[in-house]
C-alpha cells in the first residue's frame, strides 16, 4: 500500500508526521484561489511527469496518483502480483470525486473569444472524465482486469474496498488495486465555501470551537488479494465492510447519525465481530458542527464511550474523495505500529460529545481497527482491518 498527502509522500513520511504531531495544513495559496482558509496541499505535484506513453493523461489528479504509485514499492508489488495472477485477473477499482476537473476549469478560462470553443489541447477523456483515473492507473500498471471509478463523494475510496471484495468473491478477478486520488480544484474549494462549511483556521475536529473543514488532497493505493491466496504472516486483512445511505439530505448528515451507525453495524456483521472487538476508530470527523455531532451519536450508540477514536483530518485536511484510502492506510499503519494518532488542533473537547476522543498520541497493541468515511448524498462506508481471524 502507498500513500501521499500534505504530510508527505510515502508511509514513512506520514508516520513521522503523526509521531511528531506535524500537520500538513497551510494558508491557502493554491492557483488563483482567493479564500481565507488553510489547505492540505501536496508539495511537488507540479513537478511530477507521467511516463511518456501516458503523457496524454497529464492532469493534477493523475499526477497525484502517479506520485502515490511510486511510493512504498507499490508499483513493484503490483508487478509481482501480475506475474502471479496474470494481468487480466487483477481488477482496478478506484475512487475520485472531481477527477481532473481542474483541467476543465483552466480550459474554460481559455475559451476562444470568437467561437467560445475550448482550447484544442484540452482532452476530456483523459483528464476531466470521471473514469480517467482508473484508465490511467490500469495502463500505468499494465493491468487488464475489470476497471472502474466509484464516485460516491467523500465515501468513495472507502467503498472501493467493498467493490473489490465483491469482484474477487464473484470470481471476476483474483486481486485488485484499490484506492484513488482526489486533487485540489476550484470546484471543491469554492463549492465548500458556498456551503459555509470551510474553516478559516486549521480544522479542529471534536473541539468545542470547531468551525468547519480544511480541504486537502491526497492519493493512496492498496493491493487486495483473495485471503486464502496470500496467508503470509503479518498480512493485514480486510475483515469487514459496511455501506449505507442516510436517505435524509444531500449535504447534511442525519442528525442522529443513523446512516453512519448502519454502515458500522454492517461492517461488524460482515466481519462477524462485536462492538467490543474494535480497538480504535479513525473517524470521518471533518470538524463541522453537525457532522462531528452526528458521528459521535453513532459511535457512542453502537460502540460506547470507551473505545479510543480520533480524526486525522487535523493533519491532512479533508482529502474528500481520497479520504477513504488515506485514512484506511493510516488505520492500517496504526494497526502495524501501535501508534494511535491524536488530533493536532483539537484543544478543548466539545463537552456535548461523549466519544473517547484522543487529542494526543497513544501507544498500544491494536488487533482490529475501524475507519469511517461519509459523503454528500448521504453515502456512508465503514471498514474494519485486522490480523487474520
Amino acid at each position, binding site marked *: 500500500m502507498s500513500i501521499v498527502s500534505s504530510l508527505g509522500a510515502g508511509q514513512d513520511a506520514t508516520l513521522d508526521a503523526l509521531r511528531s504531531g506535524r500537520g500538513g495544513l497551510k494558508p491557502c495559496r493554491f492557483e488563483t484561489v482567493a479564500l481565507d482558509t488553510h489547505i492540505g496541499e501536496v508539495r511537488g505535484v507540479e513537478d511530477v511527469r507521467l511516463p511518456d506513453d501516458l503523457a496524454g493523461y497529464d492532469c493534477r489528479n493523475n499526477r497525484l496518483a502517479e506520485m502515490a504509485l511510486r511510493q512504498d514499492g507499490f508499483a513493484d508489488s503490483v508487478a509481482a502480483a501480475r506475474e502471479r495472477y496474470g494481468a487480466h485477473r487483477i481488477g482496478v477499482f478506484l475512487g475520485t470525486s472531481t477527477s481532473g476537473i481542474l483541467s476543465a476549469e483552466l480550459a474554460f478560462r481559455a475559451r476562444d473569444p470568437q467561437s467560445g470553443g475550448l482550447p484544442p489541447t*484540452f482532452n476530456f477523456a483523459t483528464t476531466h472524465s470521471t*473514469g480517467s483515473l482508473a484508465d490511467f492507473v490500469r495502463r500505468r500498471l499494465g493491468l487488464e482486469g475489470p476497471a472502474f471509478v466509484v464516485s460516491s463523494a467523500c465515501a468513495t475510496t472507502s467503498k472501493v474496498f467493498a467493490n473489490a471484495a*465483491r*469482484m474477487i468473491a464473484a470470481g471476476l478477478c483474483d486481486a485488485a488495486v484499490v484506492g484513488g486520488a482526489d486533487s485540489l480544484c*476550484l*470546484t471543491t474549494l469554492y463549492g465548500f465555501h458556498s456551503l459555509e462549511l470551510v474553516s478559516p483556521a486549521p480544522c479542529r475536529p471534536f473541539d468545542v470551537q470547531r468551525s468547519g473543514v480544511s480541504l486537502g488532497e491526497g492519493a493512496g493505493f492498496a493491493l487486495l488479494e483473495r485471503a486464502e491466496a496470500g496467508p503470509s504472516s503479518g498480512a493485514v486483512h480486510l475483515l469487514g465492510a459496511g455501506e449505507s445511505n442516510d436517505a435524509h439530505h444531500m449535504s447534511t448528515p442525519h442528525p442522529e447519525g443513523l446512516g453512519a451507525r448502519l454502515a458500522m453495524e454492517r461492517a461488524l456483521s460482515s466481519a462477524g465481530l462485536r462492538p467490543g472487538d474494535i480497538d480504535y476508530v479513525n473517524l470521518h470527523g471533518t470538524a463541522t458542527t453537525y457532522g462531528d455531532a452526528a458521528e459521535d451519536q453513532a459511535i457512542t450508540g453502537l460502540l460506547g464511550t470507551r473505545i479510543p477514536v480520533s480524526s486525522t483530518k487535523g493533519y491532512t485536511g479533508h482529502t474528500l474523495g481520497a479520504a477513504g484510502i488515506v485514512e484506511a492506510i493510516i488505520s492500517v499503519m496504526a494497526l502495524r505500529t501501535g501508534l494511535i494518532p491524536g488530533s493536532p488542533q483539537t484543544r478543548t473537547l466539545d463537552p456535548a460529545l461523549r466519544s473517547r476522543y484522543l487529542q494526543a498520541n497513544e501507544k498500544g497493541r491494536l488487533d482490529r481497527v475501524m475507519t469511517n468515511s461519509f459523503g454528500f448524498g448521504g453515502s456512508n462506508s465503514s471498514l474494519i482491518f485486522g490480523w487474520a481471524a
Partner: protein
Amino acid sequence: MRVHVEGIGLLGPGLAGWAESRAVLTGGSPYAASPAVLAASPLLPPAERRRSVPTVKLAMTVGAEALEQAGRDPATVATVFASSSGDPDTLHQILETLATEQRDISPTRFHNSVHNAPAGYWSIATRCREPSTSLSAHDESFQAGLLEAAAEVAADGWTVGLIAYDLPYPEPLNEARPITGTFGTALVLTPQPTDRCLACLDIDLTRGDEPVSRMADSGLESLRTGNPTARALPLLAALARVGNGGHPETVVLDLPPGGRVVVRVGQPCR
C-alpha cells in the same frame, strides 16, 4: 454469474418507457427518434423536486419504472448508478462561473455536481438506506455497472437496482465530449427466481474476440455508439425478444482492452 431480471426501465429518444418500446426493440415497429421528455420525480419532497437536475430526473424515472414492474419496495433494494459523467448542465454552469471574477457557485449547484447526486436523491425519495454504488468508466460505464450489480447479486445475495443514464453536455463541452441523446435504463436483478421474473441472465467476463452485438436499425445503432448508456440496447433488445417468447440469445458487450461481457439471455427459470 446468474441473475434474474424482475423489472426494466427505459427512457431515450423515441423510447418512452419499457412497455412502449418493446415493439421497436424487437423490430416489430419502426424506430423514430423523438426527443426524450424529462420530468422531476413525484416521489421527491418538494424542495428536492425543485432542485432536480436532468441526470436526477432521468435516473429516477427509469429506476422507478423498473422497481414498479418488479413490485418491490425500493427502500429494500440496493442500487448501482452507472454514468460516464456527473450532471452535464450543472458541471457546465459551475465551470462557467469559475471562469468569471466572482466565482460564486450556488450551494445547491455544488451538491448537484457530485457524481452520486442521483443516488442521493433516490435514497431521499425512496427512504432507501441499502448500499449504493455510483460508478463511472467513460464509454464502458454501463458494462461496468452491469458487472458490479451482478457481483452484488452473486457475491452478497442482494436484490439490486442497476440504474444507468447519460445525457449530452452543452457547448463547449459537447464538442470535446459528444454524447448522443438522453438515454437511461434500469434493471432490477435478483439472486433467486420469482414469479415476476422476465428473464434469466448468465453473465461472464471473457477474453474472447466474439463480435460485439449491434442494433439492426441504423437509428438505434447510432444511438448505441453515441451514448455510453445506450451500449445497453442489444441487451434490452434481447430481453424484449425473449420476453415475447423468443429463443435464448447471447449478447456481447465490449470491455476494452481485450475483454467482453457475455450475457446469455434466457426465459425466466421458475
